[in-house]
């Protein structure tokens, strides 16, 4: 028994070395990391082999139709960044982006917005009429905008303008600037993504919604921050009443989205999330879903909560996006170590997928591994400067 205890005391602190890889394996400043290339190869395969794609999407839709939609969004945003990182492959990436966008718009038109929402969306009427989901409008707008940042596509310009004008009109119509994703249910994640889309549309089409964005952030700081942790809450009613407190499955992406809108506030939110939700044990990084002073129940966003360490699969996955956005290489490396240990990677023919994940999870990983160039372009250049290159 003493020998076993001694052996465990030697092995457990060393175990992470087996799974640790340099951060450059996951994310590089220029070009594409090996991990990004392999993840992308798998996703591109899904979009060239319809039978395989249908199989993967159906497995996700059994649990959550949202994942089908979000997997598309994360992949399009990733491909936009990849096209900027790897110009030689831009035509292929653009082709896949267009394929995803066109199919998503077709499904939305053909099946209605409920196709990509969870069933409870039909349980009651939306407060604001006509019914719209900011979840869909924001992500679709950001897909269209991202594609156009990489390379203009005239057919998408009116589609983006229409989508953005609709969101802006509803922001003006809502007394508290709270827009629904589900009936009387508003999500911080969706608001931040939608505001990113508006900001990117401003960059593309020389419009100016800076006052709307400033006003919304000022409102959020005042009304949507959990007083104990200082973190933005995840969901609220159309009256601004909290439905859920701060959540890891939301705040990492929120802090990333805020980077385009208010850099200082974004960094503040990331640092708070890192302190409240991030954890590293024996070299393995992971994230909790809730801060210590706010407990919730495991749900479709958090994923199953692994006891003892209180690990949330959803929060840990999204933490990659936060850590990558803010250049937190130490945390990113420890998260990637955990992913190699417990994500059950499967590599075949230069393609990588994580078996413990799914298409949306892998697409979020790909986004974390590639994000950067698209935002930098929107943040630092005007469209005029861009054209003059």
């Amino acid at each position, binding site marked *: 028994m003493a*020998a*076993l205890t*001694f*052996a*465990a005391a*030697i*092995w*457990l602190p060393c*175990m992470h070395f*087996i799974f640790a890889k340099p951060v450059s394996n996951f994310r590089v400043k220029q070009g594409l990391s090996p991990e990004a290339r392999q993840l992308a190869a798998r996703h591109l395969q899904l979009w060239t082999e319809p039978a395989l794609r249908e*199989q993967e999407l*159906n*497995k*996700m839709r*059994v*649990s*959550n139709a949202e994942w089908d939609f979000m997997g598309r969004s994360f992949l399009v945003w990733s491909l936009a960044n990849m096209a900027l990182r790897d110009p030689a492959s831009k035509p292929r990436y653009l082709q896949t982006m267009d394929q995803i966008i066109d199919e998503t718009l077709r499904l939305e038109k053909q099946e209605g917005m409920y196709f990509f929402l969870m069933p409870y969306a039909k349980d009651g009427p939306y407060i604001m009429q006509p019914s719209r989901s900011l979840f869909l409008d924001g992500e679709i707008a950001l897909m269209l905008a991202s594609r156009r940042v990489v390379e203009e596509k005239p057919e998408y310009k009116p589609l983006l303008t229409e989508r953005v004008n609709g969101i802006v009109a509803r922001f003006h119509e809502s007394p508290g600037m709270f827009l629904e994703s589900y009936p009387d249910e508003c999500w911080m994640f969706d608001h931040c993504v939608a505001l990113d889309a508006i900001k990117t549309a401003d960059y593309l089409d020389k419009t100016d919604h800076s006052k709307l964005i400033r006003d919304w952030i000022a409102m959020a700081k005042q009304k949507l921050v959990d007083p104990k942790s200082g973190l933005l809450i995840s969901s609220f009613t159309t009256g601004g009443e909290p439905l859920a407190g701060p959540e890891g499955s939301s705040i990492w992406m929120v802090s990333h989205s805020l980077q385009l809108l208010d850099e200082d506030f974004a960094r503040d939110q990331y640092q708070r999330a890192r302190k409240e939700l991030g954890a590293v044990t024996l070299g393995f990084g992971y994230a909790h879903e809730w801060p210590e002073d706010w407990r919730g129940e495991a749900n*479709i966003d958090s*994923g*199953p909560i692994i006891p003892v360490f209180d690990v949330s*699969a*959803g929060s840990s*996955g999204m933490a990659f996006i936060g850590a990558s956005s803010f250049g937190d290489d130490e945390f990113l490396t420890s998260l990637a170590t955990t992913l190699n*240990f*417990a994500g*059950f990677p*499967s590599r075949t023919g230069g393609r990588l997928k994580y*078996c*413990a*994940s*799914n298409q949306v*999870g892998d697409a979020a990983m790909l986004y974390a591994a590639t994000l950067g160039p698209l935002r930098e372009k929107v943040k630092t250049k005007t469209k005029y400067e861009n054209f003059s290159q």
Partner: protein
Amino acid sequence: MIQRAAAISGLFLVLHLAGLREFTGILNGTIGSLALGWRLSAALAIFYIVLYLAFVILVPVLLLAAAILTVWQRLKNPDEQRTNPAPSD
């Protein structure tokens, strides 16, 4: 201990080669196989995950413990090692 480590490794290898890694999507709430359904997919996933954890955590501990015991025995009874050398081929 070495026999136990070998048994765990062997069993894990069988499950791995049988493709049970594909079922670990249960960790994020995704069904492993629509054809097999939730219950069987979850059972296969749990079986694989337990064996995997045993393989990466327990097997090295067992092997290290066996090595530690061997070294300990040799340090404790140096005369016995000298008078009874291991048979050579």
